[in-house]
């Protein structure tokens, strides 16, 4: 039989003990944090200035050519959306495809307050949902911050395509594996610009090293007000947008 006094004594002493253990952990944990050093190499970041985009879709064509993406209007590593903000209601979003086919008549501006183009691509998230859901570990973040797909182990289950909140992935019809923008990893390793950045006629796209103090991205971040897509999801995108508004999803 335990009386109240001894019960309280035992409870308090066990609390004190566990508190000591917790305290010991807390003293250790920040040390672990310090021990984890940031990699000294590059960290690729991408800038999109929506004000400069003219919606010519040269980037889409260049990306498809460079990366063997099928030309059908269904497979994209990068694509351009036209936003039309009406007087009332939700923004109307259309994909402008390749620009080369004569498109439907220029859309009526009746009832439209504003309209602009937004280029989209893989956001190379710091915390990528696609990496978390891959059942075979085929998709991963490299040390320089690019999310890649190992097409040898990808089983084409489409989990990552479902998980990506930005719709940046597609299933490549020839390899039947997931495919996505890699910031043109093969070009970056040769000191070339990604194909879309190379051909953009208005410099709406910028790439650079986020760790460097002197890179186009540093200037982009200094000169613009920066926004990322769906910040509420805590994916921490490395594709930064300038001059877009909250309507952009």
């Amino acid at each position, binding site marked *: 039989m335990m009386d109240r006094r001894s019960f309280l004594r035992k409870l308090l002493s066990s609390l004190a003990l566990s508190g000591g253990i917790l305290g010991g952990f807390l003293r250790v944990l920040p040390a672990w944090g310090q021990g984890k050093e940031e990699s000294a190499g590059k960290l690729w970041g991408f800038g999109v200035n929506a004000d400069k985009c003219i919606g010519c879709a040269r980037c889409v064509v260049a990306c498809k050519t460079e990366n063997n993406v099928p030309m059908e209007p269904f497979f994209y590593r990068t694509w351009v959306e036209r936003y039309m903000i009406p007087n009332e209601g939700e923004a109307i979003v259309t994909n402008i495809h390749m620009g080369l086919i004569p498109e439907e008549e*220029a*859309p009526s501006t009746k009832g439209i307050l504003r309209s602009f183009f937004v280029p989209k691509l893989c956001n190379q998230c710091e915390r990528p949902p696609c990496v978390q859901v891959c059942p075979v570990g085929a998709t991963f973040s490299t040390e320089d911050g690019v999310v890649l797909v190992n097409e040898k182990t990808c089983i084409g289950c489409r989990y990552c395509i479902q998980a990506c909140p930005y719709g940046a992935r597609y299933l490549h019809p020839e390899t039947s594996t997931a495919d996505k923008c890699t910031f043109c990893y*093969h070009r970056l390793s040769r000191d070339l610009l990604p194909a879309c950045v190379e*051909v953009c006629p208005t410099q709406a796209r910028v790439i650079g090293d986020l760790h460097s103090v002197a890179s186009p991205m540093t200037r982009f971040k200094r000169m613009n007000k920066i926004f990322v897509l769906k910040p509420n999801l805590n994916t921490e995108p490395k594709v930064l947008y300038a001059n877009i508004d909250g309507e952009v999803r």
Partner: protein
Amino acid sequence: MKTPFSKLPEALVRLLIVFAVVIGMAIIIVKFVIPPRFKDTRIQWADTVARETAKPVRYAGAVACTECHDEIVAEKKKGYHRDLSCETCHGPAKAHTEAPDNIKPPAPRDRKFCPVCHTFNPSRPLGFPMINPVAHNPMKPCFTCHNPHDPKPSRTPRECSACHGEIARTLSVSHHVQLECTTCHNVPSRHRISPRIVKPTKPSSRDFCGKCHSKDSSYKGSPKIDLSSHGGKYVCWQCHYPHLPEAE
């Protein structure tokens, strides 16, 4: 003698031995027989990075072009197309840099190509040079008037609508269609040469619109308001869009 399993039935002991052997073999196979390349994602990832890095390049990059085509590069540097990469128009040219004489990058010469960027589209940013390809010198290839490496309008257009097409179209259906642009805007002549540096003026006082719209104006046929009580501190165009007044 008491062995640990003596209390268990013999059949169960045999089953346990079979289990132990199977588990042991599984451990040996996983640990020693399967090569680490199949198990360790780090090795697979390093392979992937190597494979990605080795992929062939199609676009050579603008720097590659400067090595041979320095005249055109120098010409292009002066003009409005200075920030354009050569491959934006000429297409991927890595093959051309490797075999310059055999593979020539195409030069788009028909009227379909330039309008990809320069067709009027209301979503394009204001001030970007845009034309209506149906009305703009039909059938003529663009390069008969414009040099793509140093494009200039063949002459500076006199009419405002050449650049401000959207405003002109909006104005054409408004009550203000009879007004000249210069009625309200004072356009310095240098605006034609440096359109973004020297800008036309806008009416800066409420009295300007009041010339027609004030209660005591002599002009007939326009809606009248009391300037002293209407609109407070704002200039008229801060609320009303003068190119389409009282738009829906």
